[in-house]
């Protein structure tokens, strides 16, 4: 029985935490107030540390920490609120190439991803609604992409988009150089301006097919894989919000005592703790399933995501509540967690999508 990250990864975690503590403080606030959607300096630093290539095999320039290593880093990045396109690039971009790319594509892109030179984004959504086959209207004709994608996380800061599009009726994934002709991009107002959220319009941009991705199920499997490190990023944030609330409650006096001594606050934060631990345990199983490429991957990913969404939303909302009036000021950091929580909830298929996917997967397993 060894249901815990290895000693080596515990060490990675400790170093990541120390690094982010020293270098990521204020990252989200700067990106929010500057409306940059991105902390480029921090990105360059974490790229230099090799984090972007954590789960990329060493042959492609990665540091080969595997899926579990990626999860550990995601956890710490979540806690730090770092304003970096880590999820778009490391949870989605690299795995998409690894799973669906040709050998040439892998060789061309992965080393640059690992080096932080290539930021990726996933251009899937075309408006409101959960991810689904029929909602994809973007088309590929003659190797060129036509369609409008909204929203695309990190769309304005990425170098390359993985575009979900339909060619001769069939869904595929296409790499599009976002600085090439035929691409228009526009950053949109969003609930977490510390993370870029954009509209991309493709009008004849060249699309390079990822040959391994066939049909919408390839998109769903990509989301499954991304959901697991994403859950860790959410749990990291939730844990940080819980600790912020606990610390404030310990210091804040009302009625002659620390508000942490009131059961209303104690039980509220106990509930948050429970939600986080349930999410963490599900995510641990997710990390194992991702590393092992286990048949339970879809259930594990869905359950991780459902639990992590609930935990972070709860932790960040109750952190505000615990802070009282200060909690809803711009000046305090509570809203940075609250915004990020909802951003991450929506950024990769929202809770209804994952709940349905979870039960479908369980039903399929039961039927098998």
């Amino acid at each position: 029985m060894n249901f815990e990250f290895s000693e080596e990864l515990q060490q990675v975690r400790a170093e990541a935490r120390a690094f982010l503590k020293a270098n990521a403080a204020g990252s989200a606030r700067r990106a929010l107030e500057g409306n940059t959607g991105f902390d480029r300096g921090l990105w360059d630093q974490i790229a230099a540390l090799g984090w972007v290539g954590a789960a990329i095999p060493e042959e492609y320039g990665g540091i080969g920490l595997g899926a579990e290593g990626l999860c550990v880093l995601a956890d710490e990045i979540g806690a730090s609120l770092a304003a970096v396109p880590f999820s778009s690039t490391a949870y989605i971009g690299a795995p998409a190439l690894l799973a669906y790319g040709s050998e040439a594509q892998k060789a061309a892109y992965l080393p640059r991803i690992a080096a932080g030179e290539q930021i990726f984004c996933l251009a899937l959504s075309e408006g409101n609604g959960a991810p689904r086959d029929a909602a994809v209207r973007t088309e590929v004709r003659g190797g060129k992409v036509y369609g409008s994608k909204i929203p695309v996380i990190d769309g304005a800061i990425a170098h390359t988009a993985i575009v979900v599009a339909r060619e001769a009726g069939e869904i595929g994934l296409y790499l599009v150089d976002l600085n090439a002709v035929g691409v228009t991009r526009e950053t949109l107002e969003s609930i977490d301006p510390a993370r870029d959220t954009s509209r991309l319009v493709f009008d004849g941009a060249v699309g390079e097919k990822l040959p391994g991705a066939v049909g919408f199920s390839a998109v769903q499997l990509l989301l499954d894989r991304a959901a697991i490190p994403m859950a860790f990023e959410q749990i990291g944030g939730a844990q940080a919000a819980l600790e912020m609330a606990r610390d404030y409650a310990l210091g804040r006096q009302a009625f002659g005592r620390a508000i942490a001594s009131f059961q209303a606050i104690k039980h509220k934060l106990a509930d948050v703790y429970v939600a986080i631990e349930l999410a963490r345990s599900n995510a641990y199983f997710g990390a194992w399933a991702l590393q092992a490429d286990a048949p339970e991957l879809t259930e594990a990913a869905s359950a991780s995501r459902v639990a992590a969404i609930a935990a972070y939303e709860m932790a960040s909302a109750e952190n505000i509540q615990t802070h009282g009036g200060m909690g809803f000021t711009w000046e305090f950091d509570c809203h940075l967690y609250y915004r990020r929580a909802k951003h991450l909830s929506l950024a990769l298929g929202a809770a209804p999508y994952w709940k349905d996917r979870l039960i479908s997967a369980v039903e399929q397993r039961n039927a098998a």
Partner: protein
Amino acid sequence: MDFSDTVEEAGFRAEVVAFLEANAKRKSSRDDDAGEGIDDTLVARAKAWQGKKAAGGFAGITWPESWGGRGGNPMQQVIFNQEEAKFDLPRGVFEIGLGMCVPTVMSYADADTAKAAVGPALRGETIWCQLFSEPAAGSDVAGIRTRAEADGSDWVINGQKIWTSGAHFSDFGLLLTRTDPAVPKHKGLSMFWLDMKSPGVEVRRIKQIAGTSNFNEVFFTDVRIPDSQRLGTVGDGWKVALTTLMHERLAVGTLGGPDFTEVLELARSMTVDGVPASSNAAVRDRLADWYVQSKGLEYTKLRTLTALSRGQMPGPEASIFKVVSSVKLQEIANFALDLMDSGGLVSDPALAPKRAAFQQALLYSPAGRIAGGTDEILKNIIAERVLGMPGDIRVDRDRPFNQMKV
């Protein structure tokens, strides 16, 4: 049961409607100002409108005629509010001053002072704000630290207030201070009124999560207030404050923002495989809960009005409105965004459904659970004052204020 006015109420309502029709414009569509800040234009409009109300005999409806009021009953005030809400009129400027501060002045100031204060306020010429809360005294208002020290016939004020609505456009303020820190917290307080333009008063806007600024911080540095502006005796400030806060209960408004209807509309507008999302059982399940809460509050208000119409005063059970509606608002915002999935991230009013009402509600709903009494304080009020359960154990009742931990 019936929902009609009594004969007297109907007569009054007709009079109100005639006045409003003559002096204001009916709302063309459903407006929603939740989360909006108050700017100079709105303040000017509000002052003008208050003047018209005073001239028409609809300002201070429940105030005695001797104070320039109408000498009417609370039900008439409700009827006026109901009808006024249907017109495109400025709100949020005079409620606190006329609802809470000026009545306190009426009760505690000497006749001349009160006379000088009340008339202009009623006519919309002056605006009042309430200076009670402090950074270290939110839910526990009696824990304020702003000092008032006697100096000849003046008091010298030093300290900081916070969460002061309208301080930046107010002419006068009602100020709760600590005059004796050596006695237990409730006993060393005194109340004053002051000119907000007094030297040493500095107002700073507080920016909230949603980007708007509904509140201020107010700093006091050696501000001098003559003893003649004291309300109540020295050390009796908590009693005076309770008078003010008692009026707050009557002034409780409804939270704006999207509700059942808006979620239903959103769900109907979103089609999956040709079927609207409103036919999804999980959506209907939540919708039903919000319908029941929303209607439950609406009908509870009718029950309260019935009691009011029979001469009873609303009690602590009114806490139910905010405790239900603010959590509901936060749930609705989250649910609607989930329904939009990643599309919910976009908060540009030109792109998001309902001009981004759900995205905005996500950001301002947390304040609803805190401002004007946190969820936790309201549940305490229900438990203690409605259900008759004991207060929390108090460790601060008898301890001198200056011996308590901050």
